[in-house]
């Protein structure tokens, strides 16, 4: 398995294909429903340094606060990505993201954005909150904690060998589309509806 350092160049990202298993190290940021709406409704310059050439992780963690005011991720698996479909491609292209981590895959608009702006969709194992929290040794900073609450805040985190699978690449490939097509054919067969 390859280690992929963040921030990453466009070339590194375009070399990835569906089916690759990679481990991420470096800095990234979490963001889910509220964050995507927030990033699109206005230009958020303060977050740009954390998004540019890095990845956004669809995650609403369980967070512990230490006595010195720092934070730790107690549990941190991915949330379902498709809810961000209306926003994702625009967030990628506007902020220069190189990837998105989540679960369940995304749709045609995002796939097009990945190709256009040079990014990938990385699938983390859903529910694997402990395995993934252990790959997040440090929480650097948080945006919008007060306003959005713990799950929806944008957490800037350091990751070490954070395991993900490439399921949508920058060349139009989508494992999710492939599996859906195959399962649809099988469903029609089981229902006697012909291909």
């Amino acid at each position, binding site marked *: 398995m390859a280690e992929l350092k963040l921030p990453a160049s466009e070339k590194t990202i375009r070399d990835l294909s569906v089916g690759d298993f990679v481990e991420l190290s470096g800095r990234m940021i979490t963001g889910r429903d509220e964050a995507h709406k927030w990033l699109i409704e206005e230009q958020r310059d303060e977050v740009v340094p954390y998004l540019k050439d890095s990845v956004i992780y669809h995650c609403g*963690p369980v967070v512990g606060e230490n006595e010195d005011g720092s934070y730790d991720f107690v549990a941190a698996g991915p949330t379902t990505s498709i809810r961000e479909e209306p926003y994702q491609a625009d967030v990628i292209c506007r902020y220069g993201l190189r990837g998105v981590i989540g679960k369940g895959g995304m749709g045609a608009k995002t796939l097009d954005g990945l190709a256009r702006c040079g990014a990938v969709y990385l699938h983390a194992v859903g529910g694997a*909150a402990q395995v993934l929290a252990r790959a997040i040794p440090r929480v650097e900073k948080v945006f919008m904690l007060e306003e959005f609450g713990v799950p929806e805040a944008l957490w800037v985190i350091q990751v070490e060998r954070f395991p993900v699978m490439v399921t949508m690449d920058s060349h139009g490939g989508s494992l999710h589309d492939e599996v859906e097509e195959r399962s649809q054919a099988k469903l029609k067969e089981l229902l006697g509806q012909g291909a």
Partner: protein
Amino acid sequence: MSATESYTETFVELIRRASTELPADVLEALQEGRAGEEGGGLACIALDTVLTNVDMAREDSAPICQDTGTPVAWIHYPVGVSTRRLKEDFGAAVREATSRRYLRPNAVNTLTGANTGTGAGRGIPFLHFEEWDEPRIEVRMILKGGGSENVGAQYKLPDGRLGAGRDLEGVRRAVLDAVFQAQGKGCAPGVLGICIGGDRVSAFEETKRQLLRPLKDTNPAPELAELEERLLAEGNELGIGPMGFGGKTTLLAVKIGVLDRLPACYFVTVSYMCWADRKAAVSIDEGGEVQWLS
């Protein structure tokens, strides 16, 4: 059970167990699924990660999944026990379990978007009470995550698109469609809780109650036992696989309940439980003695 005794601490422990310790029947089903997957592909990696994660959560007494879901509990109680107090104690336990990080603060004001911060809110936790003749209190709970909740579905038969009439074949067709529609988004491999009949309220409750059943039990109604087995096999034939990566393990179990219906209605209701099928149960006897149930 003295009049002043609080059940809060017992309920906190119940929630801790649900959130951090995957039940043995679920673990076994996941291990069987892993054994059935071939090669070293993404399905294998996903299930290996899941199994490692389950061990870590138990060792660290930390949430298996960060989406600790909606706590849903069915509480049986003897004559004379105050359900109002049980409700207060369970609510207090949810708040305490949230402050101890067994639960994520998971209740959001739907209008303002503000998180209550306590894990409790309007309609959360969701409790069902039923009086019984036994002298003890029994609480059975699940933690039902949001990703899997989003892929639940309710069909009304007949359904022309699916060619589903008002019979068990129609039920089969609706359920297979639900599994297809869910793909990997409910964190496959999942457990299906199904209700045939009922109304739009009672049916969903029954689907959740079905999730309490041991994964390997047999439905006492032979025609439903047969349908459960067939849907499990056919659901897996769809090839959606762990996380929707493709593979043989799409479902771990299918559980079907039946409620009577109005002449005009024939609902088939499906709740999808993710692989992190978190459930726990406790019995509290008259003397306050606590027994953990599987």
